[in-house]
């Protein structure tokens, strides 16, 4: 059956997996994240290979302000938590609560992005530009790829919020929300590695 609502008018317990389309979407997205892992793995490898090639540019030890980065990290990790609350609300079929948690997630994501933009403009001011050195190029590429993922995620989840408020929670919208949640967690995990490999190692190495 391709019915978009369950026979008795209620959604099944896990609406994201209620249809074959939904199950395909979830599995396909897991696989896509596997590919994304290789993508970021390669970016990390390039960064690790080039991070000591600072040339005349500022040293990461002077450049990075751990306080600011820790704040950004806290914000992004919290947004992951709120996206979990959103998925829980979805499983309890509380659409309104789902939308609210998604809005909070988007706001936190935007705050993270704003901090990152501030951080980048500060670095450029300090003479750490994209073409300063191999370190700066690989730094901006790795962290920038992550930032672009956050920006895409913000647009995507915003779009889903609009759809949820117009179409409600159905077996069509549920898988979309679910995979967006997976995407958001993935971005978060990547950031944990960036925080460690780029910022913490930059401070000590």
């Amino acid at each position, binding site marked *: 059956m391709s*019915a978009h609502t369950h026979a008795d008018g209620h959604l099944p317990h896990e609406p994201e997996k209620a249809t074959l389309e939904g199950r395909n979407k979830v599995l396909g997205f897991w696989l896509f994240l596997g590919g994304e892992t290789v993508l970021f793995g390669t970016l990390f490898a390039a960064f690790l290979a080039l991070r000591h090639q600072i040339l005349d540019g500022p040293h990461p030890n002077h450049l990075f302000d751990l306080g600011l980065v820790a704040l950004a990290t806290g914000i992004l990790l919290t947004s992951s938590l709120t996206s979990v609350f959103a998925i829980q609300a979805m499983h309890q079929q509380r659409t309104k609560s789902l939308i609210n948690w998604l809005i909070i997630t988007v706001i936190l994501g935007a705050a993270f992005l704003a901090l990152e933009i501030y951080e980048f403009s500060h670095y450029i001011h300090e003479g750490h530009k994209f073409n300063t050195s191999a370190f700066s190029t690989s730094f901006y590429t790795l962290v920038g790829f992550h930032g672009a993922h956050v920006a895409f995620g913000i647009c995507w989840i915003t779009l889903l919020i609009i759809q949820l408020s117009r179409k409600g929670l159905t077996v069509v919208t549920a898988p979309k929300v679910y995979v967006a949640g997976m995407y958001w967690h993935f971005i978060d995990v990547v950031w944990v590695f960036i925080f460690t490999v780029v910022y913490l190692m930059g401070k000590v190495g």
Partner: protein
Amino acid sequence: MAHANAHAVKRYSGIMDWLTTVDHKKIGILYLIAGGFFFLVGGLEAILIRVQLWAPQNDFVGADTYNELLTMHGTTMIFLAAMPLLFALMNAVVPLQIGARDVAFPFVNSLGFWTFLFGGVLLNISWLTGHVPDAGWTSYAPLAGTTYSTTHGVDYYVLGLQIAGIGTLVGGINFLVTIINMRAPGMTFMRMPLFTWTAFITSALILFAFPALTVGLAALMFDRLFEGNFFDPAAGGNAVLWEHIFWIFGHPEVYILILPAFGIISEVVSTFSRKRLFGYSSMVFATILIGFLGFMVWAHHMFTTGLGPVANALFSIATMLIAVPTGIKIFNWLFTMWGGSIKFTAANLFAVGFIPTFVMGGVTGVMLAAAPADFQYHDSYFVVAHFHYVIVGGLVLGIFAGLHYWWPKMFGRVLSESLGKWTFWTFFIGFHLTFFVQHFLGLMGMPRRIWQYLDGLGFNEMNMISTVGAFLMGLGTIFFLINVVVTSVKPKNAANDPWEDGRTLEWTIPSPPPEYNFAQTPLVRGYDAYWKEKMDGHKGMTPAEPIGPIHMPSPSILPFFMGVGLFIAGFGFMYSPDWGDVGFMKTGHLVGAIGLLITLGCMLLRSMIDDHGFHIEEEEILKDQGGKA
């Protein structure tokens, strides 16, 4: 049965049907046409290369043009001919072999085709603008950097492949999900036909290999367009990093190419020997093992880069290990033929011709895997001979076998056997003439990628033989094209099972299959599902469901425009240094942004507008079946 939510969906015809189709069978045909076209382009480039090398100090083409031909031949053949032709067969066959009505993501399937096509077109437009990629298909840094490649040539390479690569990646994910989630009842993993298995493993390799290329191309693009320093040693960059990134993608890529060919050979040899594939489980195991090891051997392309004896030794051993599962496959094909009642159809000739040819490519592969010996072979024609033996002698013979074998299923017409045999013999003899002598040219010291060679080095005769062989391969391709034309005017009368010995599910349904493939999803009771029913005295498969309305996805023009958008964006970013400014931004960036907006806008539309699809009703299905219930 009335449907509360049966939606009226516009069903297109003519050219709009092809632009909007999400049917895997039609997308397979589109891949075949586009891949076939690029195969002819790449083949023409190869013939021009061979004409240039026909005699010592020939000046048929200039040195610059030669570099361009060499680069575009390799790039076109790998990315725009071989991969799409494999995708053509995978699209045409895999859903049928697992008893599915379509792939998991029909829309994404169409998107994959159009991004591949527009990426390929972008790459080849370089011939018209006069800035052609000329840094080799591997585009090693620093040669491919702005210092040594000052024209837009390498930009075309970077952006064209990036766009085409998106298509390949989403195609790979699509096939993985299709094979995991869409199998008919009873079609367990260990009952899947071997072609489906190889398509599965190849898709997994695509998923984990292509993102590395994405990063490599993005990094090279940043270096070239935005003054990045990834690969520029003067700014602290590392040229060897490109080699690693490229080959971490590039080595799995050659297994991405060859594994489906292994699958095709397994199907064809088994069918035309009228025997169950010998050692099916070991074939599956060997395929998985090759896929796994394929990620562990990239540095064998870099033995002379200077990674040191320990790295070279490890990669050397890992490479030699691959000979074990490959050897298992070779013996399994031989044992499948052993004692079988073999029919040498054109398809089977290609498959049987494949076996010794691929063994020869494998043997030189093990020779090259020995790092100390590789220092002698490196960058010589020996390497050229080796990889053409595995790619042409392996993959292209496999594709020809597959095309002759599945042509009736794709088009409803059986290709002419006699023309098929002409194709085989001219192509096969031409192939060995071209490349066998190149082993010896390499051992005698002829370096690869050179424009001219001097007289009196003993290279003359063998180069001439090689060129004659290339023309013979061209003749073989022409025979195939004639065969396609001649066959296309014959009546569309292929039987469901035109070879009469079909073993797998695709032969249980009409040729070509109806839009919904299976009127009733079949119940699979064992490996070689159709053959098993035949042996049990049944005419067809036992259905797993009653006849009922079938839900189909709607056609969509969005994937086409998403491809167009990326194409425009690629052009804009590439020419941004040349096109001047408009207002506060560069004209090129504006054009690029417009292109990206087209693509993103299509994504937005796709997300906002729910695709409810449509139903093919019971009456229509019964009518297709000739009115019988």
